[in-house]
C-alpha cells in the first residue's frame, strides 16, 4: 500500500468534505493519507443472541468492476483512465461529493434510501491476485495459514453442535462452491423442485431400498447419497410451500433470479437455514465490451443484479430484517480501460451489504487512484473485515472460528 499512500495527496478528501458533512462524525484517528467514508455514527450495542438470522452470500463470479457499480466520481483519475466507459457524474444515483451508484441500480434505491444498503469500497484480498481461480480459492478458503481445504462458510455453519442438515446451503448451483467445502455437511441444490427422491412419492419401498444401498456406502459418493436422502426429508416443508414470490416481487428470468427466489422461499419455510450461497455468473469478466450507458455487458449484469436483489427483499417483506445479504467478487478490475472497451483483472472492489442490521451508506477508506496501465483500486479494507462484522453481529459467530488468525478492523456497516 506504500505507493498508493504516497499518491494519495488527499484532494479527494477535500472534495468529499465539501459535500459530506457527516464525514468525520464518530471517526477518530484517520491518517493523513486516507479518508474514511461512511455514515458511521455512534456504535450501538447489538442484541446478544441473534436467533433466526440468515446470511446470504452472492458471489459475482469473474469479478465485477466495482468502479462502475459504485463510481468514485470525485476521483479525477477515474475519468482520465476511462475515456470511453466512465459513467458521467450527472447520471449517478445516490450521488454524494465523491461516490455515486450506477444508474442501473435504480431498483435498489428504495433500500438505499431506507438506510438498508451499504457499499463498502476498496475491499479485497490483502495482496493482489490476478488469477480468477487462485483468488477464488484464497477468498473462499479464507484461512491462509492452513493447507486444509475448508471454506469459511463451512467453518461458519460448523461452529457449534447444530446438526441441521439445511443450516448451510448452496442455492441455484449443482457444484458446491469452495466457501462451502469442508467437513460440516451442507446442501447444494439447483432448485427447490430438485429436492425430492424420484419414485418415492407413490412407493414407500423405494426409500427402504435406497437406505439399503446407501446406508454403508463408502467414500464421498456414499456420503453424498446419504446426505441426499436426509436432505429430502428435511426440505419437505419448502417443497410444500407456495412457489409464487410474495408481495408482488418480480425477479429477472435468469439464474440469479431463480436462485434468490428459491432462497426466499426456503427462508420463509422455516427449515433452519442460516447461510445461503448464491452465484451470479452474470458475465462479469468484462475484458471486452463492458460498454457504456448505451450498450454493453455492464448494463446487462448490473440490471440483473439490482432487479434480483430488490426483488429478494420485496419477496421477504418484514422477514428481510433478519436476512443480511453480502456481495463479493474474487477481485476487482483495473482502473484503466483497455482497447476493447473492457477491463483486465485488478484488485480492490466494492462489496454491497443489504438488509437486516445494515447501516446504509458508503463505507471504506479511499486511496487516490492512478490512471496508469497497471493501476488497481488499492485495497484498504480486507474483505474479511466486512464478513466478520456480519457473522459476529448477525449470527453470533466468532471471528477466530470463521477467519482463523485474522484481526478484523471495524467497518461500521452492520449493527
Amino acid at each position: 500500500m506504500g505507493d498508493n499512500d504516497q499518491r494519495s495527496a488527499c484532494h479527494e478528501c477535500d472534495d468529499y468534505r465539501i459535500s459530506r458533512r457527516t464525514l468525520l462524525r464518530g471517526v477518530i484517528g484517520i491518517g493523513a493519507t486516507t479518508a474514511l467514508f461512511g455514515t458511521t455514527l455512534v456504535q450501538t450495542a447489538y442484541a446478544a443472541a441473534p436467533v433466526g438470522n440468515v446470511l446470504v452470500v452472492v458471489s459475482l463470479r469473474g469479478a465485477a468492476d466495482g468502479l462502475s457499480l459504485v463510481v468514485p466520481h470525485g476521483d479525477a483519475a477515474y475519468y482520465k483512465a476511462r475515456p470511453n466507459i466512465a459513467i458521467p457524474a450527472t447520471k449517478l444515483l445516490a450521488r454524494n461529493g465523491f461516490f455515486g451508484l450506477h444508474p442501473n441500480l435504480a431498483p435498489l434505491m428504495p433500500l438505499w434510501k431506507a438506510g438498508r444498503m451499504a457499499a463498502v469500497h476498496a475491499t479485497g484480498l490483502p495482496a493482489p491476485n490476478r488469477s480468477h481461480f487462485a483468488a477464488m480459492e484464497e477468498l473462499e478458503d479464507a484461512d491462509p495459514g492452513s493447507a486444509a481445504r475448508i471454506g469459511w462458510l463451512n467453518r461458519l455453519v460448523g461452529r457449534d453442535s447444530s446438526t441441521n442438515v439445511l443450516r448451510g446451503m448452496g442455492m441455484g448451483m449443482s457444484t458446491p462452491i469452495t466457501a462451502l467445502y469442508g467437513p460440516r455437511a451442507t446442501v447444494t441444490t439447483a432448485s427447490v423442485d430438485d429436492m425430492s427422491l424420484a419414485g418415492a412419492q407413490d412407493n414407500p419401498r423405494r426409500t427402504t431400498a435406497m437406505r439399503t444401498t446407501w446406508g454403508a456406502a463408502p467414500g464421498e459418493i456414499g456420503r453424498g447419497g446419504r446426505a441426499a436422502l436426509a436432505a429430502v426429508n428435511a426440505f419437505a416443508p419448502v417443497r410444500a410451500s407456495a412457489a409464487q414470490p410474495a408481495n408482488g416481487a418480480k425477479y429477472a428470468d435468469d439464474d440469479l433470479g431463480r436462485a434468490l427466489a428459491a432462497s426466499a422461499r426456503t427462508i420463509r419455510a422455516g427449515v433452519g437455514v442460516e447461510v445461503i450461497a448464491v452465484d451470479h455468473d452474470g458475465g462479469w469478466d468484462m475484458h471486452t465490451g463492458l460498454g457504456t450507458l448505451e450498450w454493453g455487458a455492464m448494463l446487462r449484469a448490473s440490471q440483473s443484479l439490482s432487479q434480483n436483489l430488490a426483488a429478494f427483499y420485496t419477496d421477504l417483506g418484514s422477514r428481510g430484517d433478519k436476512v443480511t445479504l453480502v456481495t463479493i467478487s474474487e477481485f476487482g478490475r483495473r482502473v484503466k480501460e483497455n482497447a476493447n472497451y473492457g477491463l483486465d483483472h485488478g484488485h480492490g472492489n466494492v462489496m454491497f451489504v443489504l438488509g437486516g442490521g445494515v447501516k446504509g451508506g458508503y463505507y471504506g477508506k479511499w486511496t487516490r487512484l492512478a490512471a496508469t496501465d497497471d493501476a488497481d483500486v488499492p485495497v484498504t479494507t480486507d474483505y474479511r473485515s466486512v464478513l466478520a462484522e456480519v457473522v459476529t453481529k448477525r449470527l453470533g459467530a466468532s471471528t477466530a472460528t470463521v477467519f482463523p488468525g485474522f484481526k478484523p478492523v471495524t467497518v461500521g456497516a452492520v449493527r
Partner: protein
Amino acid sequence: MSEARAAAPSPAAALPATLHHTARTLGKPAAAVKAAVYQPISILAPEDLHLVNRFTGGWTPALGRQIAAAGGAAGWFAQQLSASAPDTFYQATAAWWTSNTASTSTLLARDRKKTEPIWEAVANYERWCLARRIHSERQVLETMTAFWENHLHVPAEADAAQYFRASYGKTIRALALTSFERLLQVAVTHPAMGCYLDNAQSTKKAPNENLGRELLELHTVGRESGYTENDVKNSARILTGYRVDVWNTWNVRYDPTAHWTGTVKVLDFEHPNTAADGQAAARAYLSYLANHPSTAQRIARKLAIRFVSDAPSSELVDRLAEVYLANGTAIQPVLLELVDSAEFRAAAGAKVRTPDEDVVATYRALGANLRRPSAATPAANQILWQTTALGMRPFGWPRPDGRPDQAAAWVSVSRMLASFQIHQDMAGGWWPTAGVTYVQPAARLPIPTIAFGDFVDHLSRSILGRPATWVLTKAACDAIGCAPTTTITAAHDVIRWKMPRLLTVFLDTPTHMTR
C-alpha cells in the same frame, strides 16, 4: 472393487433366511437349485473392468466380447490407441446434425435466418460428443478427446467462440492421442480460443491479457512455475496477431499489423520477436511451454486425477511427467505408464462419474441405442438436457479452468437426486421416448423361468459388469418385495410393470455412479 463396494458380512440375524441362502450360493457359480438352468454371462476380470471403466463410457456386454476378440484388455487398449482403428460411428454420425459439418459462414447464415440459432449449433456439437461417447467404437479416443476439451476448455456458451466451437472440438479430437505440443499449438491459435479469451481482438497497442494469462496459469506451466505479471504481459504480446473480425466479417487471419514486436521474455523463454509476422515466435513460445517441466507436472497430475484418483501420489505424477518429457510430450507413452502403475490398479471405483459420464454410462448400462434424430424431440437431442438436469452439460462449465474433476464437486445433494431422477426416467423408458431403442423388460430374462436372486445377478452382470453383491440383492428385494427364491417369468409383475423399479436399484448405486 466389488469386494470394497460390498458391505461387510452382516450378522446372520440381520439377514432373511432366504436371502442369506442365496447370498452364499451366488458366490458359487453353477451351484444351487437353479444353477442347472441359469448360466451367468461372462464378465471381465476386475482389473480389466477397471481399465474399461476409466477409458470408456462404461461397461457393456458387447465391449466384453470386443475385448475377448482382441485377446484381452491389453491388446484391446493397444488397438484403441492405434490411429488406424475403425472410426465408423464418428463418420456415420457427423451428418446427424447439419451444424457439425458446416463452415462458419454457413453457421452464420443459418443463425441469421433463424433456421438454426448458434446456441443450437453448439448444442448439436455437444449432442454429437455424447452420442459418440455412448456408441463410438473408438472409446479411448472419445475419452481422451473429452479430457483435452476440458483441459483446453472453451465453454459452449462463449459468445463469438460459438461460431468455431465444433471445428475446435473436431480439431482436438484429431490430435487427442498425439502430443500435447501439437494440441497446444493448434488450440491456442484456434479462433474458438481466440474469441473466448479475447486474443482475437488483441492489438499491439493494448495487448489483451486474458489468453496470455490463462495459457500460463491453466493450459501449461501453472502459477507454481513462478511467472510474473511481466511474463503475463509478454505472453499476451507474443500472441497478438491471431485476429478474428468478430461480429463483422468473421474473417480469421493472422494480421502482422496487430502483432507487437520487440524482445519478449517469459520465464526462461526469450525471443527477439522482430518480425511483424510473429507466428514463428508464437510457435517457439508454445513449444517451449509444452515442453516445460512445470507443464509436464501439470498435465501428469491432471491425467492422474482423471484416470487414477482424486489425490494421486507425487511419485506417480513425477514418473508420468518424466515419461511426458522423455517422449516429447507424446500422450500415448504417458497413458501406458499410467495404466501400468500399481497405483492405477489399486484405484478401481475411486472416481465419481461426472454428470455427462453418468448419462453416457446409463445409456450403455441399459443398452439404450440412439438413432439418427428425426422425431420432434429425439433422444439424440434430449440427451443434452439430461446432462443439464444433472448440473453440467459437456461444455457447460462457465469458466476457462474446465469443470472440476474431484468427487467433492459431484456429490452434492442436487446432483445425487438429479441422477436418481434421470436413472428412473431411463429405466422406465419415460424420457426420452423418441429416437431411442430400449431393451424390453421380457428380453431381460436370460431364461424363461428364473429365481429372483439369479435374475438380480444376471442384471448386475449385464448392467454393472460384475456379480450381484449381498447389498445389491437385498436392495432389489426391498424395492420389489420379492425374496431371492421368488420365481420370475414373463407373467410376473417384475416383468409386466415393475422393471423400472428394479433397474433403478442397479443404477442408483455407488458402483454405477463411480468408475
